[in-house]
Each structure stands twice: as C-alpha cells, then as structure tokens.
C-alpha cells in the first residue's frame, strides 16, 4: 500500500469517526475522538513497519516530494485549464522547484510538534472540514478555530524562514 493511499485512508477514517461520533459530541472530547481514530487505524494495520525495508529516510522524502510535486503541478495545471491556452505556461523548470530534504524534515518536525489543538484543526481543515464544522466538533468558537489555524501557520512560517521570503 502506498503512502498516498494511507493518507486518503487516514482522511476517510477521521471523517468516518467524526460523523459516527458527532451525536456524542457533548460528552465526547474531540481530542479523544482524534486519538481513537489513530489508535483504530494502527490496530487495523496488519503489517506495521514504519519504514519499508530497504528504504532510507531520504528515499521516503524523495518519494513524498515526487507525490507532492505531482499534486502541486496538477493543481496548477487544473487551475490553468480554466484560462486561455496562452496563459497556462509554467515558466519555471520543475527541477528548480524541488525543495531541500532539510526543509521538508524541519517542516515535518514542526507539524509533528504542533500543539495538539492546533494540529487537529489543521488536519481537519486538510480533510475538507470548514471552520464552522470544526468549531462545532471541538466546542469552541469559530474565532478560536481560526486562531489555532493561524498560530499553526505562523509556526510553519517561522520554519520556512528565508525560504518563504
């Protein structure tokens, strides 16, 4: 199973557990819900090696970059299709657009180190939830959701440093 399909599996599971437990929300803390999702996901993995045999961390990063580049260029292409043909040209050499491994590892660390309330908001947003849904699920105001999102993004922005000039 590829990491890509795992990713969509995670999103589906979060979605499933969120929907399934929505009615319990007054007594069911969202943090528990999130953790339960991870636990069940782990339990459901039959063969759980963190790093597939023979693959170094650098290989994994390289693969992730490949998929990320595909996704990003795909989104740019899709967006370009809504414009006239003369305006769709990517002016950059894609090879110049690939990030350094160190930057990715720093970002990964920062994402993993995000306070759980901030990471949860980011994960849910990336899973397609809107601010109001997240606020309702976490029993916080929309402003609080927005604040957590912005705090998380600010932390990531700091990691980007000079890269994100």
């Amino acid at each position, binding site marked *: *199973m590829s990491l890509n399909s795992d990713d969509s599996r995670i999103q589906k599971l979060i979605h499933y557990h969120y929907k399934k437990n929505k009615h319990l929300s007054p007594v069911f803390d969202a943090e528990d819900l999130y953790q339960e999702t991870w636990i069940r996901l782990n339990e459901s*993995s039959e063969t759980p*090696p*963190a790093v597939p045999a023979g693959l170094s961390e650098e290989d994994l990063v390289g693969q992730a970059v490949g998929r990320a580049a595909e996704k990003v260029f795909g989104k*740019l292409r*899709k967006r370009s299709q809504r414009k006239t043909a003369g305006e769709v040209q990517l002016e950059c050499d894609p090879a110049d657009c690939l990030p350094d491994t160190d930057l990715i590892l720093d970002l*990964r660390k920062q994402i993993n180190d995000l306070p759980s309330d901030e990471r949860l908001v980011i994960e849910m*947003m990336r899973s397609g939830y809107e601010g109001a849904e997240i606020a309702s699920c976490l029993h916080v105001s929309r402003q609080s959701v927005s604040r957590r999102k912005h705090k998380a993004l600010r932390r990531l922005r700091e990691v980007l440093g000079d890269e994100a000039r």
Partner: protein
Amino acid sequence: MNQQKVTSKICGSREECAPVLEQVLSFWSSDLTNDLPEEVHEHLLGCCSCIRVWIALEAASELASCDGSSSNLAG
C-alpha cells in the same frame, strides 16, 4: 543570492512572494481544490521559490501523517 543553496533558485522578489506565500500556506491548510486566486496562480507559474515552499509543505505533511502519533501506518 545564497551561494550555499545551489538548488534554491529564487524567482520572485521578497515583496512579490510574501503575500503569495501567505496564500499558499492558507491554501495548503484548507485543501481547497480550485480556489487559487488568479494573481496567486499567475505568480506561482513563474516563481519556483513559492512552488518549492508549497511542495515542501505537501511533502512534509504527508510524512508527518506517517510518523509521530501514527508511526505504524505504512504497509
């Protein structure tokens, strides 16, 4: 230009890239599919620095999903 980072070609100016990167971060965090504003899209098509950050964010978040609290995920 930073001489150590030979692979990090810089395209846009700091002033041009800063607002785009805010949008990229926001876009990355909310998984929107078709909502890149036109001016952001146009900038990205010509700015490898900003595309690089976006790719880095996507790759890092994929990797973060596969370790930390979910270190047993791959399979």
